């Protein structure tokens, strides 16, 4: 026996679900049901149509994955009459294998997903291509502004899209009419109907401004008509006020580009010359006096001594009192320092600050700088991976470090890490060999060597990390005593 079932089929899932549930609980296989839509259900049907079978005894309640309900909600809006049978077939198969939807290359799954995709596309196009026209209120009447639109969707989506317009155009009354139903909003209730509407005669003056915009934003030198029709298929054009311009825009595109090319550049108007003159005579901003730290910092802003500069955001110069007794030298700015333009403000800077605070050193009293003043890195997706500056770059950048030393004249210089040590001594030594003890330098200064705080952050083993942190703290205590 064949069951026949006719549905209104206007995008309402409940209608199908009630019938499908009854068939399934009676164990009716898909091939036994002839699903139809009312539109083609003419006199062929007999009196037993839409008859539902009795459920089998002791049926457990039906459960389907939520993903199926979601998918079915979209598929049911499709205008293809085969959608009811497809959904029932899937429902029937799901009862035996819950994993059906994950079999992404199964023919039924592919079909359902394709239908859902078309419905989604139609939904999206409706949100894009509905054009409201204002219906002015009668003279002397105050109230909410009123707008009406005529749209022709491919599928039964009006119900589905209506909330989008409600959420968006909340402060105005609107009515969208389509051959597949209509929707309206008056500030209090969203109403939808699935009765076909007739095309109204609508006009709106603002369309003329929109056409002006559409014509002017088009670049005739980049004609790509296929790309346009792919995204804005011709069947939508009849209801788009701007579409009437398309043929002439395409026809005149080449001529307008040729015209542009033919015209040679004309002589600039006087205001351009006045601007150029004003710029040439603009007062030069006063520079800090030469031979001071601020002057040196200013000069370093435009340093191009090595190639790192144009990759980094800015020069990160040293910072601190010009007569500091202690100068700390690190390796190079990192990601955060590069953005902020200040040394030791990132994660390593935080560890550095915490340790200073523990041993009672006031950061404000220190001059803090780096061996290399620009951030060297390798881009990796959304991050920047620190790269060690090479010896050549360190040597180039020593130009600045030497002058900082000469101007600040610190008694104690602390090298944090091997790069700083190399920059200060030009010697490549094992850090461990010179670490932790004051070293007298030729110019009467004292050099103290310790590790770079970022080294501590990179130690994977927690136990070793704790040990190294203690050693670093001990070094800093020694520095605190040496500085006193």
């Amino acid at each position: 026996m064949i069951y026949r079932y006719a549905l209104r089929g206007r995008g309402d899932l409940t209608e199908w679900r009630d019938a499908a549930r009854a068939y399934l609980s009676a164990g009716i296989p898909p091939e036994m049901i002839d699903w139809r839509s009312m539109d083609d259900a003419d006199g062929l049907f007999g009196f037993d149509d839409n008859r539902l079978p009795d459920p089998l005894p002791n049926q457990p309640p039906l459960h389907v994955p939520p993903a199926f309900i979601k998918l079915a909600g979209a598929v049911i809006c499709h205008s293809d009459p085969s959608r009811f049978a497809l959904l029932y077939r899937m429902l029937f198969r799901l009862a035996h294998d819950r994993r059906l939807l994950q079999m992404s290359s199964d023919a039924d799954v592919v079909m359902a997903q394709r239908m859902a995709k078309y419905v989604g596309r139609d939904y999206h196009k409706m949100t894009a291509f509905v054009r409201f026209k204002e219906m002015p209120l009668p003279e002397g009447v105050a109230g909410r502004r009123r707008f009406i639109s005529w749209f022709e969707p491919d599928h039964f989506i009006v119900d589905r899209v209506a909330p989008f317009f409600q959420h968006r155009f909340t402060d105005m009354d609107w009515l969208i009419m389509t051959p597949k139903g209509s929707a309206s909003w008056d500030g209090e209730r969203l109403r939808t109907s699935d009765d076909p509407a007739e095309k109204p005669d609508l006009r709106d003056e603002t369309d003329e401004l929109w056409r002006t915009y559409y014509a002017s934003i088009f670049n005739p030198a980049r004609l790509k008509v296929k790309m346009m029709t792919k995204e804005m298929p011709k069947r939508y054009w009849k209801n788009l006020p701007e579409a009437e311009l398309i043929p002439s825009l395409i026809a005149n595109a080449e001529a307008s580009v040729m015209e542009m090319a033919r015209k040679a550049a004309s002589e600039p108007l006087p205001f351009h010359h006045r601007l150029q003159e004003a710029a040439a005579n603009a007062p030069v901003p006063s520079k800090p006096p030469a031979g001071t730290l601020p002057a040196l910092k200013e000069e370093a802003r435009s340093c191009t001594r090595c190639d790192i500069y144009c990759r980094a955001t800015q020069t990160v110069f040293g910072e601190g009192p010009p007569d500091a007794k202690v100068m700390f030298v690190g390796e190079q700015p990192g990601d955060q320092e590069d953005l902020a333009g200040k040394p030791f403000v990132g994660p390593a800077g935080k560890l550095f600050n915490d340790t200073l605070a523990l041993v009672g050193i006031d950061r404000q009293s220190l001059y803090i700088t780096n061996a290399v003043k620009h951030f060297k890195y390798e881009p990796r997706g959304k991050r920047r991976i620190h790269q060690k500056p090479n010896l050549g770059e360190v040597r180039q950048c020593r130009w600045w470090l030497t002058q900082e030393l000469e101007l600040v004249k610190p008694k104690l210089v602390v090298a944090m890490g091997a790069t700083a040590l190399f920059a200060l001594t030009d010697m490549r030594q094992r850090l461990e060999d010179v670490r932790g003890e004051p070293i007298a330098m030729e110019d009467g200064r004292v050099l103290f060597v310790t590790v770079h705080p970022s080294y501590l952050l990179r130690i994977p083993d927690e136990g070793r990390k704790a040990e190294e942190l203690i050693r670093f703290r001990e070094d800093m205590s020694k520095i605190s005593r040496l500085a006193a």
Partner: protein
Amino acid sequence: MKKSLKERLAILSDAAKYDASCASSGTSKRDSLGSGGLGSTEGSGICHAYAPDGRCISLLKILLTNFCIYDCAYCINRSSSNVERARFTPEEVIWLTLEFYRRNYIEGLFLSSGIIRSSDHTMEEMVRIARELRTVHNFRGYIHLKTIPEASAHLIEEAGLYADRLSINIELPTDAGIGKFAPEKRPDNIRQSMGNLRLKMEEMAEPTLQTKRRKKFAPAGQSTQMIVGADGANDATILGTSARLYGSYGLKRVYYSAFSPIPDSSKNLPLIKPPLMREHRLYQADWLYRFYGFDIGEITSTRADGMLDLDLDPKLAWALAHREQFPVDVNRADKEKLLRVPGLGTKTVKSILSARRFRRLRLDDLKRLGVSLRKIQPFVTAEGWMPHRLVDRPDLRAMFEPKPEQLSLL
């Protein structure tokens, strides 16, 4: 005589069209149900129309004014150009945005401007427009503001409170190029402004102590644009700059804009058709870098001159240069390997990974997933399919190249 609103709209949108960005996506989801106002954003953007240049029209993209004190050679609005000049009042921009929005022409506003008087003066007017749209007119649609690198920090900060996206155009990939074509612009200022924006976004993303709620600051992030083909930079240089910008400033997008001849053009510039295919290849390469695990070096290594192949998409060009890595077994290969197969996109790879848990995939399965078999066949093995050294064929490249155009009889 004062030009009409319509005339000025024509001038100030014509002046804005060389900015490629029209995205209205990636911002926080919001609507007007609670506020009873106007506007919503969906997460993914909506393109309300397409012009015959194939570009989407999502936003009202206009300049506040096309008067400009700068003289950047590539720009239609440079001070030495004799294009018609005009300006909108802030009220007019607000009116146009709201009326266009109500008719569902647009998703929101993309406002840019020539620099008049001073950077701060210009920026202040732009911020005022965004502020009034939000606070006076209860507008919740999308707002993209172009920021001016030299503007004061407090103005940029205020802009970020009202706008969904902020952007600063770097325009050219090298500092030398900027120096040559945009003498008034300072590349280091541009980088610093982008850096400050990133810091601001990160700072605002931290939950505050009082409310634990994150403050909104330019929820759709920042973007930039590079002009392609105005200076001599090759694709490797351009993409290298993009990678640095993505890594350094967390940009959502770098737009590539094929240099397009402008009216009253300066003689230093090429007056040729815009290199649209090159632009397209750059976008493809940009995608490979961001979503497919390719390094810029890998993408641009296939040719000695650092240019991308115009005849082949960059993934296919890479695959042909690295045939030893193929064929890839669609039933066993990991995600990273699959992403490198020409013809497989991120969505398809996801579907393959899901489908192959249930059965061994054949070419038919791939076809149902929407894969072009012609493209993929030489590069994969599947159940019942071995490409038989197809990948070693010397004429493999020719199989993918565009067919030579046949000459027609006169």
